[in-house]
């Protein structure tokens, strides 16, 4: 872009750091010091617990009635303590046909009224919880934060969801000599904030996409595409001269439906022909309700996932407020899959189209309930929900709904519930038709000692992490094999399934890296347990018999973290895993790799991997690995940038993209070649 704009941006960031500098010395009132705040909250916590106890006695009778009426989730602590089989739900008895011999078929909505009933149940449960929590939730700023909607039109939910597409992923062998986004599943491509092909860089920059030519050493801005006002580009995807822009647009609803006006969000997917990168041509656009979550591409089709929050206060007649739309049409009830409990307030909306015809959707469905981790294998989309308060279970649970996809069409396949919750999308994995999950199981009121603790006014906070479980499910999601009570009191920090072997890391004091033999789906076995200090937040297969771990170093007692740590595990014998090498970045206290696998650059063939680490400053570091020499930093660059940074390569050059600036380096020597500010 032109010099004038560059200078302006530089000026502004200077202004901002100057203002920061000038205000650095402002003294903070003693009551706001962390110690004082901790004390204040501890007092409040105790008081709240006393209140729970008093209310419990009064509410107990009412709670029993609620149980009988089926609105069980509305009961905050009146849980029945008996643990029932994950598939046996009271609702199923009434829906006899829907329940096929133990395993459950996925359930379509009968009509909008049925959905409306579930939303009201969610609203009742929420209100009840708010009452039990004291009046705080009713004060406007608090409920704004909790519901993501505020009378002033500020959508806090949007902020809270900005990073919600953060899973973790596999390396894709690059087609041509350039890198591709680190993805979750081999064979399923994903969008990101930066994409590269041999000659072009595509960069998300706020409301615009910058298209930069990199054929020559000197980078060149070729064109840029801007989206409408009130839109925010989330990610982009490039394949075969097609550029796909994924953005969320807020549209103001003035409240003609008889309630307060608010912003409604839509996810738009615009497809451009970029065969002439200096003159992109728009081919079509698909819209769907909700904010953008994630996207997948497979065999010429694009699958877009968004999260739509129903307006739980909507009157029954305002269907638009609580049923999602695609291309302006309200979805049919039969295209909506119902949750495994009788309440819901959010939808995961999925729609598909062909890159050959980006004007028309091929299919769309909505998965109703709450939105959770979404995992996409080469054939199925799994939508999960976390249940923290399900009656009939005294532990946390995960609902899994499986939707098969092929050539732009969806088909509801199966659903089930397992105990425990998933750490991220690497904790759920499909292989040869079997679904494997590793979960951390916690008791429903862990951390607060259960209601009887309140009864005795026991204010000691119990730290109960529960334990971990592993499940193997068949195509219908029936359990074929399971292991329980792994690493009691620890929780899963990272996981990676690699064919017949699964690895996962739990942590409390030391980092046991578990190896599980999954070759017999009916008899999964823990075969190895490597204990080393620290933990890995991200695991990545690194060539033959090697597994790379990125995480934190912690001293032997598990007390102090000593910096960011990279480990290379020798997994050639899964029963006898060893930590072959490690490397600690002592002045760094964290990375993003645990939340966002796309932030990791890995190319095992080039033997390079890189990521951004935080210390007093942010640093992008690239490593190479050698069995005898261990890890070696080949590149390190300090960045004055908060936010997403990507490292990519094409041909002989490496590109570091942070915000609106791009720097290029020689891929061999890592000497700087060029830079450009967009």
């Amino acid at each position: 872009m032109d010099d004038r704009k560059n200078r302006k941006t530089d000026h502004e960031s200077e202004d901002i750091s100057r203002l920061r500098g000038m205000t650095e010395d402002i003294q903070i009132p003693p009551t706001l010091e962390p110690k004082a705040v901790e004390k204040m909250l501890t007092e409040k916590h105790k008081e709240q617990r006393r209140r729970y106890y008093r209310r419990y006695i009064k509410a107990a009778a009412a709670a029993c009635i609620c149980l009988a009426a089926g609105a069980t989730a509305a009961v905050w602590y009146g849980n029945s303590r008996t643990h029932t089989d994950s598939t046996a739900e009271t609702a199923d008895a009434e829906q006899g046909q829907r329940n096929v011999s133990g395993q459950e078929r996925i359930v379509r909505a009968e009509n909008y009224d049925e959905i409306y009933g579930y939303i009201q149940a969610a609203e009742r449960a929420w209100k009840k919880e708010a009452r039990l929590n004291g009046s705080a939730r009713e004060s406007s700023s608090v409920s704004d934060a909790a519901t993501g909607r505020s009378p002033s039109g500020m959508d806090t939910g949007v902020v809270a969801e900005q990073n919600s597409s953060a899973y973790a992923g596999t390396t894709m062998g690059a087609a041509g000599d350039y890198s591709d986004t680190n993805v979750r599943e081999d064979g399923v491509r994903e969008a990101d904030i930066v994409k590269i092909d041999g000659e072009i860089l595509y960069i998300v920059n706020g409301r615009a996409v910058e298209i930069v030519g990199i054929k020559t050493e000197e980078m060149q801005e070729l064109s840029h595409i801007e989206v409408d006002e009130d839109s925010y580009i989330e990610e982009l995807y490039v394949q075969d001269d097609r550029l796909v822009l994924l953005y969320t647009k807020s549209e103001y609803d003035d409240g003609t439906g008889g309630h307060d006006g608010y912003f409604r969000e839509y996810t738009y997917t615009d497809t451009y022909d970029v065969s002439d990168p200096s003159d992109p041509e728009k081919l079509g656009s698909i819209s769907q309700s909700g904010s953008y979550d994630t996207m997948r591409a497979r065999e010429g089709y694009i699958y877009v996932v968004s999260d739509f929050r129903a307006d739980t206060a909507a009157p029954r007649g305002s269907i638009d407020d609580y049923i999602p739309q695609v291309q302006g049409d309200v979805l049919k009830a039969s295209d909506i899959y119902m949750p495994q409990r009788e309440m819901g307030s959010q939808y995961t909306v999925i729609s598909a189209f062909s890159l050959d015809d980006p004007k028309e959707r091929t299919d769309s469905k909505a998965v109703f309930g709450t939105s959770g981790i979404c995992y996409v294998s080469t054939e199925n989309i799994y939508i999960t929900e976390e249940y923290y308060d399900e009656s009939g279970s005294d532990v946390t649970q995960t609902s899994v709904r499986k939707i098969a996809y092929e050539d732009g069409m969806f088909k509801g396949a199966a659903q089930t519930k397992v105990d425990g919750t998933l750490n991220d999308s690497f904790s759920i994995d499909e292989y040869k038709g079997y679904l494997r999950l590793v979960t951390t199981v916690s008791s429903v009121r862990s951390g607060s000692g259960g209601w009887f603790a309140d009864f005795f006014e026991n204010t000691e906070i119990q730290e109960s992490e529960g334990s971990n479980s592993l499940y193997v499910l068949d195509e219908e999601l029936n359990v074929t094999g399971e292991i329980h009570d792994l690493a009691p009191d620890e929780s899963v920090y990272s996981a990676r399934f690699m064919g017949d072997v699964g690895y996962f890391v739990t942590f409390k004091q030391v980092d046991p890296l578990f190896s599980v033999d999954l070759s017999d789906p009916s008899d999964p076995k823990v075969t190895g347990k490597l204990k080393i200090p620290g933990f890995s937040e991200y695991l990545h297969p690194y060539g033959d018999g090697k597994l790379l771990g990125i995480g934190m170093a912690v001293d032997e007692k598990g007390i102090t973290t000593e910096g960011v740590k990279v480990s290379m595990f020798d997994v050639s014998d899964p029963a006898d895993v060893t930590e072959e090498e490690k490397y600690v970045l002592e002045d760094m206290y964290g990375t993003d790799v645990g939340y966002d696998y796309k932030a990791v650059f890995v190319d095992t063939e080039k033997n390079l991997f890189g990521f951004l680490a935080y210390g007093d400053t942010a640093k992008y570091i690239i490593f190479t690995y050698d069995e005898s020499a261990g890890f070696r930093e080949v590149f390190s660059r300090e960045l004055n940038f908060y936010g997403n940074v990507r490292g990519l390569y094409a041909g002989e050059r490496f590109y570091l993209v942070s915000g609106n600036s791009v720097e290029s380096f020689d891929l061999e020597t890592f000497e700087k070649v060029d830079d450009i500010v967009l």
Partner: protein
Amino acid sequence: MYNYENSPEPDLIRRARRGDVKAFARLYSRIYKDLYRFALYMTRHPQEAEDAVSETVISAYENISALKKEDSFRSWIFTILNNQCRKSLTKGGREIAASERMNPYIREDEGYEPDYAGQQDVRRAFAELDEEERMIVAFSVFGGYRSEEIARMLGKNAATVRSRKSRALGKMRVSLGGAE
């Protein structure tokens, strides 16, 4: 004993969601100075700022279950704080005596010389902005947000925020004088 000091954020959030006060306090300790500065320049009054931050902390603690594990604690709590500050601004613009205004607490470390003049200058510069400009600048300076992120939080379009920010910083540059 669990090490709160150096734990990664997702882990602290996980703990805080289960009611762990220490984990919450640790998350808070990483950003409380920015929270207070933000509130101070937004409300222009130390007592109001203190109240806004303390209300925010209570709201955040009670509602941390609404924060998803992978979400950023920082942007979430800043959004709550912004709502609090706006609430206190609209409460009826309570009259504040000049002497009471912007008299931040004095840092008492020995041999330490805070840049009071600088703070006063910044205060004056902030005073020349309207509420929205103040918000945009405060989010940029104390929250570390980009215009696009601010736009999302305020439900405005990013181009508007960018140009308002640029105008606001321009004004401040003039009132702070060109040089350091």
